[in-house]
């Protein structure tokens, strides 16, 4: 007997037995809906990433936490009182669930004077403060002190350095860069009951977050005891570590206690939060559009299968496998889904390119290319469409 030429079974084999060409309107509407939904979702995710990228440097977050300084509000009524935080205030702050941690900014209880030697003929009385290392954004390993050590490391506010550079030329003083400031030897004089004690000091880091002159906690505690005879002074400022500085509960609490927040440090956080909320809302709407489009497509499929019911039943009776039929029928729409997702991805890329090039005037902080996670999301949506489609067809066929 001659070998039989086997025809490979494919969708083309069974296509004439299915009414796929009918009800094209609902099919094309579902395609269009899916394309719009996917485009909206991809754009929302890309915009969310853009917002994070653009506002990254302005965000005072560290390790996922916001750090904000609070003081007591000084008004005409309370200006004569001691407006510093006592232990009870600190404990109350630490007990709140929306505050991860709170640490006082301890200040010097003795007179401190700094001068910069002969190179920079400048001397001034100065305030010193210390804060738990956890709360400081830049802590080099050299930022520590132990009794007997002659050199005191300092973390200096970047804002103060900027202010110095503004008035320095008028005073005949040299302007300093961040690196050169670290090379200047500073003389620190501490005035106490036993006379003046001189230390060498050096700026070991600049801080964007803390507007102060920070010395190691060990040094200030020791010096306050030694020169100021005040080992545990109350703090005028407290730093809060919180998951979200814009948490309404936190803001309500601070307002109720009449505490003042350094608003500059949370301003970008607020802008970012609003933008993120808008984009998230848009993303939610996009998911809704995708779901509606998929529902419309499922109606089309149900109608197609209902119209081909007799033929499909007969194919099953003749021995066609329901599993094979489901896979083969479902595969028919893979090219359509692929085209829809690729078109949406290309449009997202085009919009990102226009946004970076025209709206942002080619700013470097933002890439003109879409983020890898947007491509991953597109791939995920593609897979999801195919899977949902396959499961639906399989369910409908097994029900026959």
């Amino acid at each position, binding site marked *: 007997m001659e070998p*039989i*030429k*086997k025809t490979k079974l494919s969708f083309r*084999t069974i296509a004439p037995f299915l009414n796929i060409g009918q009800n094209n309107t609902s099919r094309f509407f579902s395609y269009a809906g899916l394309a719009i939904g996917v485009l909206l979702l991809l754009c929302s995710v890309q915009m969310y990433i853009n917002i994070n990228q653009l506002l990254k440097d302005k965000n005072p977050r560290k390790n996922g936490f916001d750090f904000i300084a609070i003081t007591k509000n000084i008004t005409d009524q309370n200006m004569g009182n001691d407006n510093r935080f006592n232990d009870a205030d600190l404990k109350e702050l630490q007990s709140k669930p929306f505050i991860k941690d709170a640490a006082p900014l301890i200040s010097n209880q003795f007179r401190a004077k700094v001068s910069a030697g002969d190179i920079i003929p400048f001397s001034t009385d100065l305030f010193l403060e210390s804060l738990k290392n956890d709360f400081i954004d830049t802590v080099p390993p050299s930022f520590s002190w132990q009794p007997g050590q002659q050199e005191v490391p300092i973390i200096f506010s970047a804002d103060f350095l900027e202010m110095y550079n503004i008035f320095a030329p008028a005073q005949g003083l040299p302007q300093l860069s961040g690196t050169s400031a670290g090379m200047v030897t500073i003389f620190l004089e501490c005035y106490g009951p036993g006379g003046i004690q001189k230390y060498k000091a050096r700026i070991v880091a600049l801080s964007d977050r803390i507007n102060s002159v920070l010395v190691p906690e060990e040094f200030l505690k020791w010096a306050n005891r030694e020169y100021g005879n005040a080992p545990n002074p109350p703090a005028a400022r407290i730093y809060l570590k919180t998951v979200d500085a814009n948490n309404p509960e936190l803001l309500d609490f601070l307002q109720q206690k009449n505490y003042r927040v350094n608003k500059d440090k949370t301003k970008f956080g607020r802008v970012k939060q609003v933008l993120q909320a808008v984009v998230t809302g848009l993303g939610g709407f996009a998911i809704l559009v995708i779901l509606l489009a998929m529902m419309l497509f499922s109606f089309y499929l149900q109608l197609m299968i209902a119209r081909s019911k007799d033929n499909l039943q007969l*194919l*099953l009776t*003749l*021995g066609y496998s329901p599993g094979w039929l489901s896979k083969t029928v479902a595969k028919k729409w893979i090219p359509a889904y692929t085209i829809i997702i690729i078109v949406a991805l290309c449009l997202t890329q085009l919009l990102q390119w226009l946004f970076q090039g025209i709206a942002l005037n080619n700013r470097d902080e933002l890439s003109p290319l879409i983020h890898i996670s947007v491509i991953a999301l597109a791939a995920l949506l593609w897979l999801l469409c195919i899977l949902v489609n396959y499961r639906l067809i399989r369910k409908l066929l097994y029900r026959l």
Partner: protein
Amino acid sequence: MISLDKVQPSYLEKEKIERSQIWNEQLQISKGERIQIVAPSGSGKTSFIHFLYGLRNDFNGNISIDGKQLKNFSAEDFAAIRSSVCSIIFQDLRLFPDHTVFENINIKRVLNPFHGEERIKEMAARLGIENKLSKLARTCSYGEQQRVAIIRALQQPFDFILMDEPYSNLDENNRMIAMELIEEEAKKRNAAIVLADLKRLEFYKADRIIYL
């Protein structure tokens, strides 16, 4: 082998079951056998064929094919059995009315071909419907459609061919030609023929005649 173990339709009257040589009895059908089931109207002939082919399962007792019980079969198992173990000619033919005769036959052939495409034309010529191959099935007479159903059933490999009144609308000459073709094809596969009809068919030389 097909084995029936005390099979009885759940809806059939008691006296009909008691009179039957199949219902509530033990029965084996082996490959290569030629069996005629003689079944008067209402005795459950079509039900019996549908039970064997797995289209209905409203019976008590067990039916097994090659040791596997039909009641445990999945939809995929039935698909496998129908494409390579059991072929069938339905009493109601079950053709695709809006497709051509050729398409009706070829859709079965391509699933698991036993013959090449050219054999369809040869068989159609032998049964006198070669000029109908390009016509829609619904435009053919019932007798022609019956011959289409016969040719379709012969396109696949099978161990058992189940036939439910396959010649009811054929004249004597065409009945004999069709029977000859079916016997030839069954012999090629060493397959059993299970032919169910209202009365005994003289031109079919069965090994066993069983009264339902």
